[in-house]
């Protein structure tokens, strides 16, 4: 039997290291584009202050990026280390986007990041600008392939189980790339990254403005952040809605759990604004808005949304046909030429994963009792209340940031950037919120998919490596200690860099006269950059 303690510790370790890694990724995504925008303005206008801004944000970017690289390699190793059966079972599909991520994206990003820092005096202005854009592009391509991989775990298209090799194998690679879940997740996730970058720049600029330091640089940075942030906040919410809509098609259970919708509601279903879901299949006290739930999830007035209890009943049927698939698979493994068994397997294989849910209760799942099937079907419901609440936190923050950036954008376009001290302080204190929203989002995506590691195909507990508890205790302790120390150091260093403020750089671009012009620039709305962004 599978050691469930090892499975739980493996899950904790993966969750901890993935969520930790994702502290740094969104900032990389957002900040790299904002640096590229600022440097573009520098190259177009020749104004030194924009280069100064690029360099200042670049220093903070560099510290963050180092943490991203350090924790990213852990992710690549951990699939094999802690999830070896997963790696075997779906590596034929899942490995490809990861490898292509290396080929197409990470190589680009990691090669040019060095030139970003070391190439200022060795490249022409335009040459360096190209390097900065390529770095940003690399980071975003990287997100694309990682989300293609993750999207496949949510909606495993373009693949089929091969009884001869005992694993899922690719049948249609284009379906994997153009997986609607992956596409929706990609745009939602990078938008969240842009939002994070914008909040980061805006919050630190607000700090400078409150203190009356580096005012010209902070004003310009705030303008870029306000416009970039508004676009990002709008797209993160709109695309998040798209992501939810796509999930309704492919992961109904996740949606039902997010909404704590136990019973099937007549269309259009209400939407619960606030509520206290219990684990007993009942909703406690709640406030609902009529119709909204049905509209968000199905975008129709007539389509019915099944509740959790109905989905559990459906799962029982799928487990029963999963047993049929499993038995046929045993027959094929015993005798590869058994065409009858192959015919049965071809019909029932999509439910094989449901059959495997029984492995938690017995090895010989063909002899499963009715009670065990009922228990396994109940396992298909993820824990409801954490999902219900994190979803509302994430959504609330999304709407909050639309309002926040709309206000900032309006004020920036009127030239009222540093006039309202309470707003500046408030902006500084919103700094942690994008991370709260983003980590909530990943929690919903991954925890909401439980008990599956690959939706409907492979249960999480069945995918873990056969490690010992000691292995896991050692590695988990190691990660907790090292990661805690590193994040403290990182924050201290960032604070030091922010306190020291932007520096006047002494080097010049290759082959360019030092165009040290106007550090003192007139009122902001007159600068070409803001005109362009504002129009």
């Amino acid at each position, binding site marked *: 039997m599978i050691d469930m303690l090892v499975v739980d510790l493996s899950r904790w370790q993966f969750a901890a290291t993935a969520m930790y890694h994702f502290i740094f990724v969104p900032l990389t995504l957002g900040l790299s584009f904002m640096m590229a925008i600022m440097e573009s303005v520098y190259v177009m206008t020749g104004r030194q202050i924009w280069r100064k801004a690029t360099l200042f944000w670049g220093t903070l970017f560099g510290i963050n990026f180092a943490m991203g690289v350090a924790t990213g390699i852990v992710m*690549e190793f951990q699939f094999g280390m802690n999830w070896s059966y997963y790696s075997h079972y779906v590596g034929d599909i899942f490995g490809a986007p990861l490898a292509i991520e290396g080929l197409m994206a990470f190589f680009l990003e990691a090669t040019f990041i060095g030139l970003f820092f070391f190439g200022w005096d060795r490249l022409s202005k335009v040459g360096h600008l190209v390097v900065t854009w390529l770095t940003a592009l690399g980071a975003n391509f990287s997100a694309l392939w990682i989300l293609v991989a993750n999207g496949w775990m949510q909606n495993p298209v373009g693949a089929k189980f091969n009884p001869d090799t005992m694993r899922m194998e690719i049948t249609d690679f284009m379906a994997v790339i153009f997986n609607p879940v992956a596409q929706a997740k990609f745009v939602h996730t990078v938008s969240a990254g842009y939002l994070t970058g914008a909040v980061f720049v805006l919050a630190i600029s607000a700090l400078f403005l409150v203190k009356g330091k580096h005012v010209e640089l902070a004003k310009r940075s705030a303008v870029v952040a306000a416009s970039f942030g508004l676009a990002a906040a709008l797209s993160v919410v709109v695309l998040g809605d798209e992501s939810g809509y796509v999930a309704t098609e492919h992961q109904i259970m996740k949606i039902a759990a997010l909404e704590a919708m136990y019973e099937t509601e007549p269309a259009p279903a209400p939407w619960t604004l606030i509520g206290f879901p219990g684990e007993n299949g009942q909703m406690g006290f709640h406030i609902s808005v009529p119709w909204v739930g049905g509209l968000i999830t199905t975008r129709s007035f007539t389509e019915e949304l099944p509740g959790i209890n109905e989905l559990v009943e459906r799962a029982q049927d799928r487990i029963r046909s999963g047993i049929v698939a499993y038995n046929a698979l045993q027959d094929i493994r015993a005798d590869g030429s058994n065409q009858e068994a192959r015919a049965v397997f071809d019909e029932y294989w999509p439910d094989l994963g449901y059959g495997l849910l029984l492995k938690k209760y017995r090895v010989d799942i063909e002899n499963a009792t009715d009670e065990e099937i009922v228990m396994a079907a109940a396992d298909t419901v993820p824990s409801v209340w954490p999902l219900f609440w994190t979803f509302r936190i994430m959504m609330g923050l999304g709407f909050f940031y639309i309002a926040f950036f709309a206000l900032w954008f309006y004020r920036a376009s009127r030239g009222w950037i540093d006039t309202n001290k309470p707003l500046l302080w408030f902006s500084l204190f919103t700094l942690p919120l994008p991370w709260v929203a983003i980590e909530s989002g990943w929690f919903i995506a991954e925890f909401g998919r439980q008990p599956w590691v690959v939706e409907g195909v492979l249960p999480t507990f069945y995918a873990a490596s056969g490690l010992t508890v000691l292995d896991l205790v050692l590695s988990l302790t190691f990660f907790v200690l090292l990661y805690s120390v590193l994040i403290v150091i990182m924050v201290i260093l960032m604070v030091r860099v922010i306190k020291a403020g932007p520096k006047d750089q002494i080097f010049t671009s290759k082959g360019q006269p030092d165009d040290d012009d106007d550090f003192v620039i007139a009122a902001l709305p007159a600068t070409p950059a803001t005109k362009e962004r504002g129009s």
Partner: protein
Amino acid sequence: MSTIPLDYETLRLIWWLLLGVLLIGFAIMGGRDLGVGALLPFAARTDEERRILLNVIGPTWEGNQVWLVLGGGAIFAAFPPLYAVSFSGFYLAMMVILLALILRPVGFKFRGKVEDPRWRSAWDWALFIGGFVPALIMGVAVGNVLLGAPFHLDDTMRIFYTGNFFQLLMPFALLAGLVSLGMIVTHGATLIVGRTEGAIAERARTYGIWAGLGTIALFALGGAWVAFMNGYVITSVIDPNAPINPLSKSVELVQGGWLNNYRLYPWMIAAPVLGFAGLALAVFGLSSGRKWLAYLSSSTAIFGIISTAGLSIFPFFLPSSTMPNAGLTLWDASSSHLTLFIMLIATLIFLPIIVLYTGWVFRVMRGTVTGDNLTKNPNAY
């Protein structure tokens, strides 16, 4: 599958080669940074000297490390069972490598941000660990591959690994670790000699010469050891186009079995010859001040030594000591025909582009690094 223009056997062979290219690519490109890391506290004594060394590798090390990331990704995509068995089986060894690889990026970035000498010295040692430990442990891992790993598979391809961390530290495996460390240090030394001047270059030259000579001796000792050690030989007929099933073959342990390939295909002798010749020429280049000869020769040595290991165990990737027929070979541990083909297309498109832009970046960043560079660039490490 008739629409795939290359047959399964050819694709498996191509991916065996490509994996070799990626791992050798990492050992040469990333290896120079590991070697410099391992030499950091010794070749450079003052803070300025250490900064010079860090700025030799600083602009390009991140790109170089992607060869390893890509190697890992390629193993996952092209040989999933190999990825699953090796990464989970060598679990704690992998954790040690991860420690080293986590320390590197933060070490580079964090070290220069604070002036305190204790802070800098602490990160110098972190960067030393980041270079020394992977170079050693990856070699120890290769040694264990030649010895065979204690794992078995059940009928569902679930993996059972029965060894522990300390069993990895067998004498032969440690010898392999030292060969790996020696070749990486030699290589790092040739880079330092090529890109710095004065006292650092002098010290690195001395370390490089000794490391090169030591590696020649250790590599020779390893060859002799292998001749008396048990190798794994497949005794059943392999269908190189069949769906993967490691358990379908039979395997025997034969003394000196790892040398069989050289009897069957005498051209393979070229690999160890390149290993020895590369090391010898690197030592010659270092002692006679021929910087490029030294650097290119140590690169050749890495190519030769890793190829020797790969060719000796061909067609194995990872033999099993406790259930020999479960050992993984390129024929029974690969991805599906279609995945191998798709990955080949992706590689043919992107690898040449990578080589082009990496070459360009290296050209931009070429030249000797001196104390001047440190003051000119405020981003310098």
